[in-house]
């Protein structure tokens, strides 16, 4: 009896300690973000005096200023445009290729697939140097098209790999039935394979969305004109220009961070899946 009570106390002490540890890490994770949002709602005068997380007065004006005068509105739309086009591009191009690698026969199939996988494994740090030269040659530098194509390439290999792994495990019966009904190969890809691949497509979409939205270095070397820049590059420039206006800067950072946090919270199930499966095999 006494042993049981002792055991219970010991267990609840351990549990309390574990919760304390987890909660303190939670606070360390969230505090900087809450501080960012809170500071974005203060003014230049109050931000260095009012250290509470909940500002005494809410100044939404910083968001209006950042959006209009900081040029954030334009860059925000740029980011959305790049993210949407690149992700749609990757989904279509990668799923077509993955389907072919998994189901169709053609000479050179293995060599080509190995090339994509090798590209996924071999890091070329500084490949942006060559990409800069190439895009200049093609007259695609400082154009949205150049950036979109380069970004599609960045996400292509891993997406092909994930989708091919999925197609390999997919039962063939439905495709056979569709073929009997006279469906073309493209028709089967579109009407049968893609709908079945929804779970893995979600993983592909989430990871590429985050990657494109957060991308910095290619955008930095590709764009000279502000009108084309995505948020991540614009915000760094913005910091140089409004160096002392911290609430305004924090408003800009909140605008840049909020979409990914929302996408993450909505789709977090797929992120966990991607990290635990994709990382282990990739």
């Amino acid at each position, binding site marked *: 009896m006494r042993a049981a009570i002792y055991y219970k106390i010991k267990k609840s002490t351990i549990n309390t300690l574990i919760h304390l540890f987890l909660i303190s890490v939670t606070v360390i994770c969230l505090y900087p973000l809450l501080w960012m949002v809170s500071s974005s709602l203060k003014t230049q005068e109050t931000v260095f005096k009012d250290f509470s997380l909940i500002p005494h007065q809410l100044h939404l004006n910083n968001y209006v200023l950042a959006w209009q005068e900081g040029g954030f509105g334009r860059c925000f739309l740029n980011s959305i445009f790049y993210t949407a086009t690149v992700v749609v591009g990757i989904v279509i191009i990668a799923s077509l290729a993955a389907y072919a690698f998994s189901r169709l026969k053609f000479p050179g199939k293995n060599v*080509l697939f190995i090339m994509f996988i090798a590209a996924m494994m071999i890091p070329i740090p*500084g490949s942006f*140097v060559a990409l800069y030269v190439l895009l200049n040659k093609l007259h695609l530098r400082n154009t949205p098209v150049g950036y979109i194509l380069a970004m599609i390439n960045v996400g292509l290999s891993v997406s*092909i790999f994930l989708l091919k792994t999925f197609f390999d495990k997919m039962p063939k019966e439905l495709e056979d039935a569709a073929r009997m009904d006279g469906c073309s190969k493209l028709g089967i890809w579109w009407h049968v394979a893609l709908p079945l691949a929804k779970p893995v497509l979600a993983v592909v979409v989430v990871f590429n969305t985050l990657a494109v939205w957060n991308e*910095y270095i290619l955008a930095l070397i590709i764009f000279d004109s502000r009108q084309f820049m995505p948020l991540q590059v614009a*915000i760094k420039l913005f910091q140089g220009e409004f160096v002392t206006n911290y609430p305004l800067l924090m408003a800009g950072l909140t605008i840049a961070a909020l979409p990914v*946090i929302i996408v*993450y919270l909505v789709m977090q199930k797929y*992120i966990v899946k991607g990290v*635990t499966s994709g990382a282990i095999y990739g």
Partner: protein
Amino acid sequence: MRIKNILENYLFITPAVLIFAIFYIIPFIYVFRLGFYDWDGIVPLKDAVFVGFANFKEMLFQDPSWWQAMRNAGWVTIIALIFQNAIAFLLAWACDREIKMKNFYRVIFFIPPVLSEIVVGMVWRFIINDVEGANMINRMLTAIGLPNLVHSWLNDPNTALTTVAIVHSWKGFGWGFLIFLAGLQAIPSELYEAAHIDGANAWRSFKNITVPLMMPVIILVSILTVLGTMQAFVLIIGLVGGEFAGHTSVPVLRILAVMRDSSRFGYACAQGISFGTILVIISFIQYRFSKERQPKTA
């Protein structure tokens, strides 16, 4: 009919192969060619001067700034390997049991990894930079009675790099956490129960069951940490602003500066080739190591 069939199949891979060829293969070849040239990026490429291995020799023997960047990246990587992964493992171990709010913690710990390095760098800069006493860390140190530890963390060459490493760990531990947690959850609970019946205490079963079975996962996370951290540089742009006279310079920042500030495209490519080779060798060694250590049963 057969040929038509094959051509039709090629249609499926043509877009992928085209983009891959133009934006991966050609730059890949460019990097390897340019590494042997001296080129300022302005004169036509055909007028670039062939210099053989001169770029590589310069990097190896005459460029202390390159080696400083390598050392810095090594230091950040060591801190990430030990500190960040230890935290990640501890958190995963803490979450691998029947506790309340398990899912809540899991969701929160992966927020930093989904944020952009620019955002993370700039937010942390605001928190630990010395602007008009807004430095949160310093204010906390003062509040808990340690005012003599107050320090301008990012402006002091001695602490700037370690500060970068800690913010990097803040941003990155969620990856390791998720992978470790998946690994821990894959260990069958019967093993622990059997060990418990045999009288093994918590430490013994941790040492004899958890660690050996988790070894492949630990090595995987280590490989990902080394490859990711050695190549990290955007966070430094956000947090410090740049190389800080070399104190927070890392290889990719060097490559970027050599290309953009010094307009030495050939030299930048030579550095990229060498650094990429080093990364491939590191991951290969770690991979081999993991094969040897893998338990036979797993």
